[in-house]
């Protein structure tokens, strides 16, 4: 537990010790706001955050891999992984420490969008429950993207390669659930396959949580996704750490 906390603390401090955190936060906050207003945040005349949450998956496809790419690629390139893993820290503790630090960092980024919530509350009477599940869904989705990014970061020493691979993997998982994709594939695939693909997509489960229902299936989708990719990350890292 102590080793996990040591990695967690160091990693979180690491974000703020370099300009990385600030660049990320500014760009994330700008685009999350920009996309919400482009959707007609005010013009819709509805006191909810739907316009904000709707675009988050697309924004996360680029933003989350950019936080995840350095997690292990940098460590392996610089060689500091040798230091880290010769301290009394197991690979699992190190992977989890880094993952949760990055996840908390993304949670901070999400929390900093609070002016949108205040605006909505000031202008009308929004359904607070819906906003809370919206944020919860976003956080779970960020965790899922992050776990994928973590895996690809462990796979390659090169940060650019790990970034591109995880953007592609995340994009596939988001676009698989988009209506346009589903319409297209339903022209040549049987209905069962189409719904299976739909069930594998981030988009489907994220939208379902957006509706304000925390259904067990949706939550466990994200949890399973995170656990699976993190476990894969641990295995890959153990295999490739010294190369």
């Amino acid at each position: 537990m102590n080793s996990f906390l040591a990695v967690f603390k160091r990693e979180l401090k690491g974000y703020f010790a370099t300009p990385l955190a600030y660049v990320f936060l500014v760009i994330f906050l700008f685009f999350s706001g920009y996309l919400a207003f482009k959707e007609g945040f005010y013009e819709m005349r509805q006191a909810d955050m739907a316009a904000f949450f709707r675009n988050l998956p697309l924004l996360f496809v680029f933003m989350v891999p950019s936080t995840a790419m350095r997690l292990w690629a940098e460590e392996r390139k610089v060689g500091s992984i040798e230091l880290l893993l010769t301290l009394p820290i197991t690979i699992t503790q190190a992977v989890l420490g880094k993952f949760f630090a990055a996840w908390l960092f993304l949670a901070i980024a999400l929390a900093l969008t609070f002016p949108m919530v205040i605006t909505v509350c000031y202008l009308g009477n929004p359904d607070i429950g819906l906003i809370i599940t919206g944020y919860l869904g976003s956080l779970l989705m960020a965790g899922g993207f992050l776990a994928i990014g973590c895996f690809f970061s462990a796979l390659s020493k090169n940060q650019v390669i790990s970034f591109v691979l995880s953007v592609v993997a995340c994009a596939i998982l988001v676009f698989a659930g988009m209506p346009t994709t589903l319409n297209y594939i339903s022209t040549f695939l049987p209905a069962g396959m189409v719904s299976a693909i739909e069930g594998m997509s981030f988009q489907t489960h994220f939208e379902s949580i957006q509706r304000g229902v925390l259904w067990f299936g949706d939550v466990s989708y994200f949890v399973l996704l995170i656990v699976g990719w993190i476990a894969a990350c641990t295995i890959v890292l153990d295999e490739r750490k010294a190369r």
Partner: protein
Amino acid sequence: MIEVKELRRSFGPVVAVDGISFNVEKGEVLGLLGPNGAGKTTAMRILACFLKPDSGTASVCGHDILQEPTAVKKSLGYLAENVPAYSEMTVGGFLNFVCDAREIKGRARKQALDRVVPSCSIESVYHQTIDTLSKGYKRRVGLAQALIHDPRVLILDEPTDGLDPNQKHDVRKLINKMAKDKCIIISTHILEEVEAVCTRTVIIARGRILVDSTPKDLKEEHQCSLNSVFRKITTTNTGKKAKSA
């Protein structure tokens, strides 16, 4: 305190460590010598539980490296070859992180820092970030990191590489001071260092142990300087390869 049994490790077709065995006791300073690519670093990485051997095993302070890696890591201090550290951290922040990971807290931490910072002479750079340090200072920070928990076993991969003559002298003095109650393995290319600090030398080439002796005996046996002994031993045994190339 260190027992190495038939350790083997290969990377693809290259056999880096080919069945080496040796024991090191408390009070001994073992100098691991060998040409580049002889397998010194690989052997040390296996002992530090960073790499797993393909076959064979080793134990450090009675803990097996395969069965109880965490106990092994706790009882040894390891300085890696290229002295990895987190460049964005300050020296103090970095040492505190190592204390966190090694569960050194409160007063013990203060004592550990008070002991290790002056003995590695890094007081002047304590608040500097690591990427602004020169190679010599980085290496001393690495050494401080390896000594912070006062380990019984030390594994140092080229501890004086990149240091100026004064710093080299200081580090050797530090090693000599610690030698009595610790078990130390150092790898080096610098043969005068072997004479200055080591009580025993193991010369390896192409993953195999060629000689296991003391620097004094080696010199007496071959009647020449350690430099010539090293050249004689490593070139006669790798001679075939050199000629065919």
